[in-house]
């Protein structure tokens, strides 16, 4: 049977998501190092002197560095967001794989979408923790107007929408199973 347009599109999207997933995993290794870039002089300086494997690896100590709490909080936040983002991308890959093979109403689609929703809530929780930490560190209301504050409602809403979508997928899978047993 000739694949439908949606299946072809899902196949292309699956490849894009896979590439994004691999790039994100590679980027995760550089997260602690990336948090230090703003303190450096220029990109030339960064590339010539700091972009070595040793420098990137030693930057991981920032996760337990009490001397620079701002950077430590940022590094943990970006790391949690990166891991959760990777898991969400992988769930998207599972759904797209099923769609590419024509299994629109598979139960695994619903489970994958709900799992992605759970990880959206974890990102929102990480953003909330970062906000509280920054409020304590700055002793002012300034962190309330940063992007991580914006992350909280956005990812809570995204998580809720994914939960609803997951429930719809699960119901659709049930109806399909029922329909398959009507002779």
């Amino acid at each position, binding site marked *: 049977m000739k694949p439908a347009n949606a299946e072809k599109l899902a196949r292309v999207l699956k490849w894009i998501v896979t590439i994004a997933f691999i790039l994100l995993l590679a980027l995760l290794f550089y997260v602690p190092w990336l948090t230090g870039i703003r303190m450096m002089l220029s990109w030339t300086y960064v590339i010539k002197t700091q972009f070595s494997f040793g420098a990137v690896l030693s930057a991981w100590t920032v996760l337990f560095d009490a001397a620079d709490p701002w950077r430590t909080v940022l590094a943990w936040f970006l790391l949690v967001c990166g891991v959760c983002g990777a898991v969400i991308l992988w769930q998207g890959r599972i759904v797209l794989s099923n769609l590419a093979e024509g299994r629109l109403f598979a139960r695994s689609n619903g489970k994958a979408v709900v799992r992605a929703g759970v990880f959206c809530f974890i990102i929102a929780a990480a953003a909330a923790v970062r906000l509280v930490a920054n409020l304590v560190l700055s002793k002012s209301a300034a962190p309330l107007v940063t992007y991580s504050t914006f992350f909280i409602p956005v990812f809570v809403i995204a998580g809720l929408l994914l939960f609803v979508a997951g429930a719809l997928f699960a119901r659709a899978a049930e109806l399909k199973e*029922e329909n398959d*047993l*009507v*002779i």
Partner: protein
Amino acid sequence: MPIIVNLDVVMAKRKIGLNELAGKVDITPANLSVLKTGKARAIRFGTLEAICRELDCQPGDILEFRSGE
């Protein structure tokens, strides 16, 4: 489920195979097997009518209600 499908009994009486009956009632052998083994959730009137016509029987010969099962 208390509804019992006696399709296998009627088919044996009429000496007709699964594939032959499936071809005559125009459904797949896999679907007819689901019906025969009692795994089906429901049966369309159209399918029941075709089976009764081909097996020369009544719906009651194929379907039976047994309480407490």
